[in-house]
């Protein structure tokens, strides 16, 4: 009986912990939005000098090679497999490029690029903020009258939104280009046939950009939240980094699902 009571109490405590964490995550998001107003909406606010440009460089420029290489390979593998299956079953490869373009623009471009960014950028943000937390640097900021969210998260949040959108466009282009090259070199698909954007409509582009915007907002929020929850020493920073990668990757997938369902509901089957 005692065992059962302990188990139920354990499950209850875990559920409460999850709820508390979800509430804290929400408060970090709300605090970040309020921080944007505090820093950029008021006259004479003291902003971290050069922080936004520096973070755009860290998140965008330093991720460039990683994104180009990974999404390039993903595009090549996907098109190779698609061509292989189509050549065995249907035999007609003329529609692959047209369909692939639409899929990349509305979904794969932003989602896969952001998944890659979630690992690199998410881990970086959590490790940086987490190590500041465990070495009391975050407390030192608070003692100087600085809100840690304003100083640490707001520049990363804005930079991540901008650079995720830019890298998603670039990633989609690389994926499409690499896929077309693979189709031509491995299966002889004419590039004029493959690189056909006839089925891409403005709503696909809008959905893709909306997804990139949401992913770009979610990655620093989840990662910053994990960093700010770091406790203890290096072990706590390790935990925060792992949680940030898992959490922000999960956020990308969950947002992809929700936005895709929303678009399906809005536009019918053609998204």
């Amino acid at each position, binding site marked *: 009986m005692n065992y059962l009571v302990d188990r139920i109490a354990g499950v209850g405590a875990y559920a409460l912990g999850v709820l508390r964490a979800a509430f804290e995550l929400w408060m970090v998001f709300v605090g970040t939005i309020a921080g944007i107003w505090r820093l950029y909406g008021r006259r*004479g606010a*003291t902003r971290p000098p050069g922080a936004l440009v520096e973070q755009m460089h860290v998140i965008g420029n330093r991720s460039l090679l990683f994104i180009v290489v990974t999404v390039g390979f993903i595009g090549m593998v996907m098109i190779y497999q698609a061509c292989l299956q189509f050549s065995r079953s249907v035999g007609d490869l003329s529609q692959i490029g047209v369909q692939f373009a639409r899929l990349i623009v509305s979904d794969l471009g932003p989602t896969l690029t952001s998944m890659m960014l979630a690992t690199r950028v998410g881990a970086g943000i959590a490790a940086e903020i987490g190590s*500041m937390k465990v*070495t*009391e*640097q975050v*407390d*030192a900021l*608070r*003692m*100087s*009258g*600085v*809100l840690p969210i304003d100083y640490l998260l707001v520049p990363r949040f804005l930079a991540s939104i901008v650079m995720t959108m830019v890298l998603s466009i670039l990633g989609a282009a690389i994926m499409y280009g690499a896929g077309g090259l693979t189709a031509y070199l491995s299966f002889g698909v004419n590039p004029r046939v493959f690189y056909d954007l006839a089925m891409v409509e403005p709503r696909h582009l809008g959905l893709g950009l909306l997804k990139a915007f949401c992913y770009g907002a979610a990655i620093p929020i989840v990662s910053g939240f994990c960093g700010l929850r770091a406790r203890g020493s290096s072990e706590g920073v390790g935990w925060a980094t792992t949680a940030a990668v898992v959490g922000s990757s999960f956020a990308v997938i969950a947002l992809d699902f929700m936005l895709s369902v929303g678009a399906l509901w809005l536009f019918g089957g053609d998204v």
Partner: protein
Amino acid sequence: MIELQDVGVRFASRQVLDGVRLDVARGARLGIIGPAASGKSVLIKVIAGLVAPSSGRLIIDGTDVTGLTEERLAPVRARIGMLFQNYALYDFLTVEGNVGFPLVRRGEPADQVAQRVRDRLRAVGLAGSEHKLPSQLSGGMKKRVGIARATIAAPELVLYDEPTAGLDPVTTSKMYDLLRADHEQSGATAIAVSSDVAALIGFVDTVIFLYQGRAHYQGPAATVADAPDPVVRQFVRGALDGPLVG
């Protein structure tokens, strides 16, 4: 200046502080001593507003600041300087950037900030170290940078969390000489937490002995080694035998 009324702090199932009462007058120097894990650092963080008490009240200059939001605490903290146990120097800023940070955040002109940083670094014996990064400094130098940062904005209250932890005896003496000179000049209130009781009692007027989360004893620093309480006496003298638990 500082008043703690029955302050308690609870982390999960552990009661770290329990009903702590404290009254620190303006200009006083208070030392907080006690065994490891007795809640000394937590108490100093409660006074700084960095840890919210689970019960009780924190009153600064007659104003109850318990449970204030971070934004509303900012003007209170502007009057407090703090030296952290692990230095807490911003590793992305130089020594100059670290020391001048509180002034830059208040929007003071860059030339004034630079001048005050130079003066402050000279006072703590670190002139010429302006462009070094924290990773290039020794433990004693980091502590001195921390002191310079904590005091550059001329705070009314300075909190020192283990100001000499990890330092050799000579550097410890130098550090306390520096703190003594600083406070004699500024007249600021000081609250220091330290495990090095012998060195601390030369700096503070009064000590409070935290034991099992409670303010077990409070009395003059000069006579703490002869305190009537046997637990305090054992702790200060470092005796192995006695009633001290843990």
